[in-house]
């Protein structure tokens, strides 16, 4: 854990209720699948936000406006200073990928898969990314993923873009070496049941501190109690209890 002051560089809307923010600061030790915890004016608890990308000292978040915290963030101008705890949580272990990993993101579960996808492409893997959304207006990062050179597949519930249905419909006929996924729990469970290979699943829980002190976000696993903020948010398929 590191306490870093970041400066907002850009903050723009990229889809319905979804914003992309870039910030400059000390990004050392930040890995794919981990998160940061942001102090916001007038709000007591910090706001955990997953890391979407980082390049040198520039960090990127993609976040959905869901409450007062993310609403406050959406109004921030360039130059705003933010008090951020970084290097939080246990992210994706990319060494487990095998030759042709599949990354699956649902809605705002897509951003944490971006940095992982980039690193896996850089490592010479044959990477497939499946993004799931409800409808066309919600889709973001299509071009960014394509630019990485991954095999990108999109599923929308209403069929407005890509495969009609869920991410598991877009997963059919693929034989992944490994799965990296993040999204709503029903989606994670569907992916878990639809795949025979191992994988890493990123979970969400309401957190107090975000760094393991309060035990607010614990979950039960096959290997004992784990804190989503500390031993998670990424759990191995083999340890998950639904």
């Amino acid at each position, binding site marked *: 854990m590191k306490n870093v002051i970041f400066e907002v560089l850009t903050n723009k809307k990229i889809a319905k209720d979804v914003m992309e923010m870039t910030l400059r600061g000390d990004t050392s030790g930040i890995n794919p699948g981990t998160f940061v915890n942001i102090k916001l004016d007038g709000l007591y608890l910090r706001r955990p936000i997953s890391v979407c990308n980082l390049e040198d000292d520039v960090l990127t978040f993609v976040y959905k406006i869901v409450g007062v915290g993310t609403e406050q963030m959406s109004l921030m101008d360039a130059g705003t200073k933010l008090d951020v705890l970084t290097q939080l949580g246990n992210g994706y272990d990319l060494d487990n990928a095998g030759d042709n990993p599949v990354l699956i993101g649902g809605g705002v579960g897509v951003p944490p898969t971006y940095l992982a996808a980039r690193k896996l492409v850089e490592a010479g893997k044959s990477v497939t990314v499946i993004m799931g959304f409800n409808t066309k207006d919600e889709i973001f990062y299509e071009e960014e993923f394509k630019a990485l050179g991954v095999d990108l597949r999109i599923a929308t519930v209403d069929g407005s873009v890509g495969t009609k249905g869920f991410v598991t419909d877009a997963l059919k006929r693929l034989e992944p070496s490994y799965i990296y996924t993040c999204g709503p729990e029903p989606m994670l469970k569907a992916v878990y049941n639809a795949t025979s290979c191992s994988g890493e699943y990123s979970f969400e829980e309401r957190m107090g501190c975000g760094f393991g002190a309060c035990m607010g976000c*614990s979950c039960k696993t096959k290997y004992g109690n784990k804190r989503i903020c500390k031993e998670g948010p990424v759990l191995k398929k083999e340890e998950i209890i639904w």
Partner: protein
Amino acid sequence: MVNTKVNLMGLTLDNPVIPASGTFGFGYEFADVYDINILGSISLKGTTKEPRFGNPTPRIAECEAGLINSVGLQNPGVDKVISEELPKLRKVYNKPAIANCGGFSIEEYVEVCQKLDKCPEIGILEVNISCPNVHNGGMSFGTDPKAAYEVVKAVKAVTTKPVLVKLSPNVTDIVAIAKACEEAGADGICLINTLLGMRINLKNRQPIIANKMGGFSGPAIFPVAVRMVYQVANAVNIPVVGVGGVATAENVIEMMLAGATAVQVGAENLVNPAACRDIILDLPRVMEKYGIENLSDIIGGCK
């Protein structure tokens, strides 16, 4: 040069600042944030006889100037605390720590306290009769003077280390409970634990916390804590440890003026992992500002 030392139940603390139980784990995880040996002491995560997962999630709800938690005493159980957690703490912390002991019956309190009493890492036993998040135990012992008396009496009979009893604010007469603990042989009183609270989600019209209610802490409860510390400190002849909403060095001074010999910092650790360090480093400045040379001189200074 100001003097921040205080004497708590026979132990000399370098300063009165102690992270409160449940907000600092078993301490060692904070050692990569700062040198935790600067702390007065550490109150460790509440420990019970058996391992506990605690309550279902979600068990955190944000509030104005605070939060509600319904963790429910998640801990690995006293045996594992002694065999696994205390050795990890000992590697990075060389002062006596405070063991926070929970239970669901007098026998459980006795067993947990007896085991932790024998640990060299432990300097004080903090008997938690005030957890609002467990049923048939915890707070039910802390809301009735007779039950509080019995727990403390039973623990005192089998332990040698100073016993600090942590009280709940969710009572009609805090003084009666504190006096019952003193009469039973308590060496000190720690208050306040969290206030029972609740939040409702407007979208689904349901409680935010899975357990519906939980313990409210944070700066919002500071005035309640100061009031109760003042009431109890003026009614008992044993030291009082003040806790509840402390976030600044000024808050520490205020709590001590109300009658606290030492001060615990809880929720603030969850938003600023270095909160206790920041408070300790700021204490000399605030003491000088208010003309305080020896911190222990101001205990109970507000009449």
